[in-house]
């Protein structure tokens, strides 16, 4: 099969049609929220994800604080939206159930943060002003320059930063922010000439051979 035929076949089948809600066109038992997880699962994976999604771990208050932190880490600006606009808290809510090793550090880290905030400003992190929040974040956001009394807060902040960055950049909004252009059928013809020129590189003539 020639590449262009493959591309055509792909665009007609899995690429184009997969997004159509074909299952909604047939009579189905009334299920207000059809279960949705990663495509192409084996039965034991579906069972596991169903259980994870039905479980609760983080409380609404904890998720609200995570949302505040996530938007401090990834705010909306000229190029793209914020972490909460990209759905990061829901992602973190899932991932701490999927990866239980996160549960104690995240819950404990949030408690550290609220305790510190209360000592310093009389209220939990969610209850203080945006300016006060930034004062705390400045103390825990730079792990190589952190005062010893903030080391636990810094470890927690690095963890939340990593989850937030991953949660944001693995969305359409994140792809667009980054300028990721792949995950689509194409015909790789090498690095663009202007990029080769910029780096002073060129291709070996073996790559010009067609067979």
């Amino acid at each position: 099969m020639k590449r262009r035929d493959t591309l055509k076949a792909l665009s007609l089948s899995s690429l184009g049609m997969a997004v159509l809600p074909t299952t909604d066109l047939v009579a189905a038992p009334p299920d207000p929220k059809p279960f949705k997880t990663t495509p192409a699962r084996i039965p034991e994976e579906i069972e596991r994800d169903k259980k994870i999604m039905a479980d609760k771990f983080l409380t609404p208050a904890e998720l609200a604080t995570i949302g505040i932190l996530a938007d401090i880490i990834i705010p909306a600006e000229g190029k793209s939206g914020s972490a909460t606009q990209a759905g990061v808290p829901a992602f973190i809510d899932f991932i701490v159930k999927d990866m239980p090793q996160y549960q104690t550090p995240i819950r404990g880290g949030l408690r550290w943060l609220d305790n510190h905030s209360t000592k310093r400003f009389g209220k939990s992190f969610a209850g203080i002003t945006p300016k006060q929040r930034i004062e705390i974040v400045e103390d825990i956001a730079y792990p190589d320059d952190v005062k010893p009394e903030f080391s636990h807060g810094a470890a927690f902040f690095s963890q939340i930063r990593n989850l937030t960055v991953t949660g944001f950049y693995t969305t359409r909004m994140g792809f667009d922010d980054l300028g990721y252009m792949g995950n689509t059928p194409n015909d790789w013809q090498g690095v663009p000439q202007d990029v080769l020129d910029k780096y002073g590189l060129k291709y070996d003539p073996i790559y010009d051979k067609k067979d």
Partner: protein
Amino acid sequence: MNLFEIKEQPKVYDVVIVGSGAGGGMAAYQLTKAGAKVCLLEAGGYFDPADPKYITQLKNPWESPRRGASTRTRPFGDFDAAWGGWDIEGEQYTAMPGTQFRWFRSRMLGGRTNHWGRISMRFGPDDFRRGSMTGIGDDWPTSYEDYAPYYDKVDRLIGLFGTKEGIRNEPDGIFLPPPKPRLHELMLKKAAGSIGIPVIPSRMAMLTKPINDSRGACFYCAQCGRACQAYADFSSSSVLCIPAAKTGNLTLINNAMVREVLTDPNTGLSTGVSYVNKLDLKEYSIKGKIVILAASTCETARIMLNSKSPRFARGLANDSGVIGKYLNDSTGASRSAFIPALMDRKRYNEDGVGGMHVFTPWWVDNSKLDFPRGYHIEYGGGMGMPGFGFGGGIERVNGLFPDRNGNKKKAGGYGVALKDDIRRTYGAYIGMAGRGEPIPLESNYCEIDPNSVDKYGIPTLRYHYKWSENEIKQAKHMQDTFEQIIHAMGGIPMGRKPDASNNYGLAQPGEIIHEVGTVRMGNDPKKSALNGWQQAHDVKNLFVVDAAPFVSQGDKNVTWTILASSWRTSDYIMEQVKAKNI
């Protein structure tokens, strides 16, 4: 009513094959094409990369609630084609105290070919005679010349890209055009070349040009690990098993967990296999005139060791006692780096094929080194698709470069500046991994655990595996080389350099998933289980066509050699049947 009745199929197949990976798939393909009635048993479910119900290719990370993170069932990520993993519910294994082995399995049609990196290298002439060349290890009973015509046939049937390089111990094949290197790969070639380390086009089983009407050409999504719906890469399901089924001569039985090979107590010949159907949990048996095991290096050894009878008290075809011994996996060590010159890159789609477009074959003369075997280097990097873990550890990188105004800044941070750092460093990382040849040792083995059965009641494996100084020294050399290449690129190595305290980052045995050697070939029946045709010395209608027969593994990922040797054995079987020898 007998609850534990064994359901016996009256039909006698010409051949019963256990396992549908590279070796079993190739034997099924060759033998069904030749007209034999073949029964293929696979311990896992059906899989077809082109069937939408199995497709994860071209899905976006947000279609996974965990954004493609790994799970117990898919240790290489939620979108990986292969299910199974290191730790399968109810299919446990153990290791002797002080030793370790990690056993990766893919329970599905095509087996571990659904996972592998498609790196397709021939063994070289030296790889078959390391014992006599170096005085350590053993020679194969066969030579490169025995496999060369079959490597050619595999190249033509399955297809791979590469370039003719004329390197003596890296034999050239019949290659499709290689994809052009990505930017970081051009930089790697230049940097490594400047310090005498060769970087050449990789040799991988993706179709950069179409080779027939049943498979498409690569469309460069970098997702071979998710299985290709266009069949543009090699996996045993799409290229061998499904075409074998189309001959009408194949009976495929999925979810068949083989318990043992059955033998005739009078002749000692194999008569078929017994298995547990994983769906109804009942016991079945299948009769065959010839039995071929291709269940994977360790599973094949397990089946043979579990096939005990008064005539084969040590396990089937194990009068030598060698089965399970000489288990060996590739060495592996890796390092990553941040490359400041790759910051602020122009964006374009550089996904390419699934994996590296260039690699480094072994290049050093061992007589100048303190270890006896070599390794190759695989490279990673580029503006890949973000998935779980993306941006992780930015605080270890963004203090290494100044801001846009040239001011030094603190590592970590948040907000608009952090977003800018993520964009600026995107595509500015590289990774490299060594994959080397270990010395197969009799003291590294798997055996039947006397105290443990799996959930089907089949006795499980217990491992005994320790690296020797040879492999540890090789890993040290890898780490030194990685830093030299990184520095030649102007890069900054990430993390602390692995050292003696952690065996120089040497992966645990089994982790590289290149294990071979448990049912070794040889000319001496006292020291080997199979002859040079992968035929049991003690049972002439029993063959092994996975990597269990391999005496050693070179530093070449072994799949291409499994395919070539399985084809060669299939031809031998047909000749022997015609000559009425079996």
